[in-house]
C-alpha cells in the first residue's frame, strides 16, 4: 500500500513533469492525496489524464464565469480546479455554474472540496448520472462510488448550497422535546442566585 505522503510527492512531481508550474503541482499533490484519502480514484484519473495530454489538446480555463463553454478542446481539469479554488469567493452570487466539456471531471472534485471549506458552504456537483456533495472538505458524498468515471463530460453543473438544515422543523422540535427530559426545574431561590440576578440591566 502506498502512503499518502508518497501519493502526494509523486503526484506533485508528475504534475511538474506534465508541464505545470511548481505552485500548481503543489496544489495537485495535496488534491490527489485528498482524493485517495476519501477513497476516490485520484491516481488512476491523474495518470490517464497526463497520458492523454501527449496526444490531445485541452483548454485552460483561467477565469470562471457563470456559464463556461470550451471552444475547441475540453477544459483541463487541473487548471479549472485551481482557478475554481482561487476564485471561489466570487461565485457565491451565482445560482449555478455550468461547464461544457471537462476532461477527466473527477479530478476537479478535491479542488471543489477545498473550496467548500474556504467558503464554509457545501458544494453540489453533477455530471452525467453522477452526483457529489462536497461537505466542507470533511467528506465527499456520492450516489455512485467505485465507478469507471467518464473521461469527458458534456455538461457539468456546480451549485453552492446555502447553509440550511437537512431536517424539518417538526423533526427538530420532536427531538428537542425529548432532550428536555434531561433538564431540572429550578426553584425560585436558585433563580435568585443565578448570573445577572439582582442587578438592573439598565446600568
Amino acid at each position, binding site marked *: *500500500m*502506498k*502512503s*499518502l*505522503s*508518497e501519493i502526494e510527492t509523486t503526484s506533485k*512531481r508528475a504534475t511538474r513533469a506534465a508541464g*505545470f*508550474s*511548481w*505552485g*500548481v503541482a*503543489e*496544489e495537485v499533490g*495535496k488534491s490527489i492525496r485528498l482524493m485517495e484519502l476519501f477513497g476516490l480514484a485520484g491516481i488512476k484519473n491523474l495518470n490517464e489524464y497526463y497520458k492523454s495530454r501527449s496526444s490531445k489538446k485541452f483548454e485552460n480555463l*483561467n*477565469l470562471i464565469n457563470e456559464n463556461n463553454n470550451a471552444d475547441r478542446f475540453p477544459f483541463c481539469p487541473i487548471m479549472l480546479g*485551481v*482557478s475554481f*479554488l*482561487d*476564485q471561489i*469567493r*466570487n461565485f457565491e452570487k451565482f445560482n449555478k455554474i455550468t461547464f461544457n466539456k471537462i476532461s477527466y471531471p473527477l479530478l476537479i472534485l478535491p479542488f471543489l472540496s*477545498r473550496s467548500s471549506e*474556504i467558503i464554509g458552504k457545501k458544494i453540489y456537483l453533477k455530471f452525467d448520472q453522477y452526483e457529489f456533495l462536497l461537505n466542507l472538505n470533511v467528506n465527499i458524498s456520492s450516489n455512485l462510488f467505485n465507478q469507471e468515471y467518464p473521461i469527458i463530460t458534456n455538461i457539468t453543473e456546480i451549485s453552492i448550497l446555502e447553509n440550511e438544515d437537512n431536517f424539518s422543523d417538526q423533526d427538530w422540535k420532536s427531538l428537542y422535546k425529548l432532550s428536555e427530559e434531561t433538564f431540572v426545574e429550578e426553584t425560585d431561590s436558585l433563580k435568585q442566585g443565578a448570573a445577572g440576578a439582582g442587578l438592573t440591566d439598565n446600568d
Partner: protein
Amino acid sequence: MEVKLRDPNIIMKLSRLGSFHQSKLSFLRSFLDEFKDWEYKKDLFDLDVNGHGTAIYSFKKKDRVYSLICFANKISDEERSDRVIATKWDAAFTLHDGVPAKQDIERLRNEVPKQEVGRLSYKELTLSRANKSLRVFNHVVESLSKGNQPDLELLKKVGYLYRTTAVYGSGKFGLADRFRIKNREEINGPFRLEMMLVYLVRQFTFDQVNHVAKFKNPMTAVNLDLEICKKLGIGNSTGLGMAPFIVNHPTLLNNWIMSREIALKKIREIKKVNTRDVELFKQSVKNSIKNITSWNTESEYQQKKITSLLENVQKFLRFMDKKFSFEANYPFNQIYLWLEKETCDECIEYIVSIMMEPFDDIVKPLIGEMSSEEDQYFNIPTNRTIEDLRNIIEKRYPDILKINFNKKENYKNFWFISKNKEEPRYADRFKEDGSELEQPLAIARDIKKLHNKLKIFRDSITIDKFLIENSDLRHVVRRAFIIEKFPYAEIQDNTIGEKVVPIDMLRLKLSFFGALKFDPRSDKWLRICMFQGAPLPQELKNFDQQWVYNS
C-alpha cells in the same frame, strides 16, 4: 522589562543557523524525557556467533508498544559504504507499531534490509540502516574477548560503534503517514520516533559487540563496561537530502526556531535568578568545555569555528568569574548583550543553548509547540490584494530584495532530485546538465522575481487575478502568505549563490535533533554523533538531565 524576540533577518541567515547547537529543546533530549518512565525490554536476541540475526527491543506503557526490529547481516568489506547509493548494510532496522507477529517479522526480514527498494506498511513507523565503524567495532570485540576493556582514546576519537546513513519516517516507502499517529500524546514533538529508533539501535550495538566477543572467546570475554557504553553514541553520515526539508516545511522550521527564541526571550526577562539555577548554568558551561576539546574534525572550516568557539567560551568563563555578578537584575539579558558584543556567532548560540538548562518551566511547555499542522496554512488567501503581498515581502525579505540576480554568482547553483537515488542534490548550473529540472528551492530568487512582477499591478487587484497570468510564481505567493504569520519560517539567504555552504542547512536541522560534534567531510556532507553520553535504557527512570555536559 520586555525583551524583544531576535530579528529573523539576523537569526535566519545561514551563517547563524549553521552555528546552532543542541539544547534542552532538541528532539533526542525531549525524547528521553518523554520515554523515561516507559518499560524498556529486550524481547528477542537471536544472533549467531558472528553477530548476524534478529533482535527486538521495545518501549511499553499501558497498551502502547513500540518495537525496534533489528536485522544484522553479513556483508563484505567491499560492500560497506556510507553513501546513500549503497545497497547493503551491516544492520537494518525498523520501528514497528505494537508487538510484531511472526508473520510481521518474516515480512520485514525480506523488506527492511532492502531499505529504499523494499516496501514497508502502515504498521511500521521508521526505517534505518547502519554500518559498523569497523576499526572501533573490531577493536572492541578483540579487547572484550580477551577480558580487557577497549582503548578509551580510540573510542573517544570516534565516539560510536555504528553509523546510520539514513533514518526515514512519515510515509516514506510505505511507512505510516504522520496523520495516523500524530494525536498520540507521547509523540507530541518532531522526529520523536526517529529518535527512539536511533536510541534503541545504540543499545543493539552494545549488545551485539558483547555477544560477538563472548562467542569469540567464551572463557575470557567480558562485557563492555557500562560507563564506557554511556560514552558512546551512534554516528550518522548526513548529506544534502536533509537540506531541502527545512525549505519545504516552513511552518515547522518556524516553530523550531520560535521555540528557541521564546525560551531565550523569557530567560532574558528573568529579573532575579536563584543560586541553584546560577550554579547549574555555570557548571554546565564549564563542563561543556570538554565537548569542544574532544570535538575532532579534519575540516579546516570547522576547525576554525571550533578554535574560535573554544577561545570565546573561555573568554566568557573569565568574564563570568571575574567581572560579572548574577546578583544584578536581569542577569541573562546582560550576559546575552555581552555575548553579542564580545563573541562570535558560534559562541552566542552555544551559550544560548546552555542558558536553557536550569529553566524546565520555560522550556518544557515549548517542546509541545514544535510540531506543525502544515496543511492549515496551505491555501493561498486569494482575496488578499497586491498591496498586501508587496507589504509582506518588503517586511519579511528586506535583505533578499537587495540581491542582484542578474549576477552569475547569485544564481550559480541549482537543486535537483537525482534520478539514481531520488535524493536532493546541488550542482553548478553552468557546469552540469539538468538545471531545467530545478526544484523550487531558490526561494530568494523567486521572491525577488515576484516582487518585481508585483510592481506592474495595481494595489487593489486581488491575488486570484494576479495568479491567472502568473502561475509560475504561485509557489512563492503561497510562501509569502505563510511567512506573514511565521516570521522564522524562511532562511534569509540566497540558497543558490556561489558562497552558500549547504552544510549550514544540515547543521541547523541536526542541532535540533540534538547532534554533537559536527564533522564536515566536504561542503555537502558531514558526520555527527547522537546520544553520546546519554543514559542507558536501564537508567532512564532517574537520569542526569545535564548528561550532555556531565558525562
